[in-house]
């Protein structure tokens, strides 16, 4: 059985997530329509698109929080929609998701939040957990905040603690759901630079959901543009940036003139 097999190491450029004809509807609303793409290991892939086009729904499929109506989604060799509960939990130990609003446990302090996956999935001693928590908090630029309550943190800090928690288990794939939404321009740049720094330092696979165009050009190796549930374009950063597609030109040009309608 796939679940009993070890999770193998993926070489840079090798497809680590493959999506085939993925579709999802909520009632009569079709949110994802026949999505197809290969996400490569060791690269940063950014999915761009206006609000309400199914970006967050897509990321929730990758981590198995939602099941597609049709299609296949393979993550690290596991077909996610067909996995049982235990197999899915095994896979998730190799994935880290930083939620849009942090999704920190507000009854716990920063230390307890970041150490949460470590204390549940590793046999690390308290001292080792402490040192790992300090390490990831340092990585996201929040050293010494262990004893703070999450309610004492700003939105940007909460997002960064969420990212630290996602990184704690040293996952193979790190996913970000709109890391810069609702932040001021300086913090947006800080977060973008943080993702770039992490990619350089950790060499992991990053999947980012965003509608920040400038940030995307800075950090992405691959770019996918989602609009009304369809993947309009998926390819290398420079190719997508130069694409003549009328929808893309409108979106990248940040103009109302064009076929794209805001949701």
């Amino acid at each position, binding site marked *: 059985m796939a679940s009993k097999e070890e999770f193998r190491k993926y070489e840079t450029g090798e497809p680590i997530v493959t999506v085939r004809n993925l579709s999802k509807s909520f009632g009569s609303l079709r949110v994802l329509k026949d999505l197809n793409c290969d996400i490569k290991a060791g690269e940063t892939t950014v999915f761009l698109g206006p609000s309400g086009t199914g970006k967050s729904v897509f990321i*929730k499929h990758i*981590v198995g*929080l939602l099941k597609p109506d049709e299609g296949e989604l393979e993550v690290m060799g596991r077909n996610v929609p067909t996995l049982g*509960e235990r197999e899915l*939990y*095994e896979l*998730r*130990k190799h*994935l*880290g*998701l930083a*939620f*849009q*609003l942090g*999704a*920190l*446990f*507000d*009854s716990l302090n920063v230390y307890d939040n970041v150490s*949460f*996956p470590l204390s*549940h*999935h590793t046999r690390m001693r308290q001292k080792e957990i402490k040192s790992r928590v300090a390490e990831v908090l340092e990585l996201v630029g929040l050293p010494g905040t262990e004893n703070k309550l999450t309610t004492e943190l700003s939105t940007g800090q909460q997002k960064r603690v*969420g990212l630290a*928690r996602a990184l704690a*288990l040293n996952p193979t794939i790190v996913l970000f759901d709109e890391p810069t939404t609702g932040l001021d321009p300086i913090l947006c740049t800080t977060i973008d630079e943080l993702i770039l720094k992490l990619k350089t330092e950790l060499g992991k696979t990053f999947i980012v959901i965003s509608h920040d165009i400038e940030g995307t050009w800075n950090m992405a190796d691959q770019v996918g543009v989602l609009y009304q549930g369809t993947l309009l374009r998926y390819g290398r950063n420079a190719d997508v940036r130069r694409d003549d597609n009328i929808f893309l030109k409108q979106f990248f040009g940040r103009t109302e003139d064009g076929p794209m309608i805001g949701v």
Partner: protein
Amino acid sequence: MVRFVEFIGALFGKVLSEVGAIGLFVIKTLSVGISTFPNLKRFGEECYNIGIQSLFVVCSVGAFIGMSTALVGYATLKDLGAQNLVGIFIGIASIRELGPAVAAFMVAAKAGSGMAAHIATMRVKEQIDAMEVQAVNPFWYLIVPRFLAIMVVLPVLVVWNDFFMLGTGYMIAVFQLKINSGAVMENLLSTVAMADIWKGMIKGWVLALFIVSICTFKGFTCEPGALGVGKATNQAVVYCIAILIIINFFLSQWLYGGIGLRGM
């Protein structure tokens, strides 16, 4: 008329589907509870949350109900010229009926609403999704410890509440109604059997199962937004109180109904 029948049919269907969903939720909780070793730290926290935090409210309400029981019992028995038997009235009413029911209602109102609101807030703030993504089963972390804790704590609270009700009832009977303290005590002791205390604990245990099932289910399946949290909490308490009254009747029927029939 047709619309009325349609309305009743739809309502009945909705109730049935809700009962089915709660049943599946409980089965899922039991399967997780049986297949995994419980989280003892969370169990301890929940025992504290439910027990210690509900203790004051349960006992204070119980104390006043114990006093009222003595007054009502005295007034009723006085008409029959048997006011000295008020101890029997206090004993039977407190241990067999009011002790378990009051403790359950208060725990539903205090701890049950807290459970529903906490879990619902975690649901709308994506904290339950975050737990799932971190490969920690939310049933194991959030639901099972609450099930175990309330089923341990509520029977204990029932006994505690029994003693508060008996104590305050005794004081009213002796100090306000001036009934001989020896007579009150003798009547209390002769009425209250150990079996009644056990039956009260059984009632507490069964009612606890309904409280925790409804409140955690409502929180876990909460609709989005602040409105969803409010609705989940409100429904949890209202459903709990209504169901507790019905279940309490069937429990009394099961535990004491036979005695009534034999006495006829």
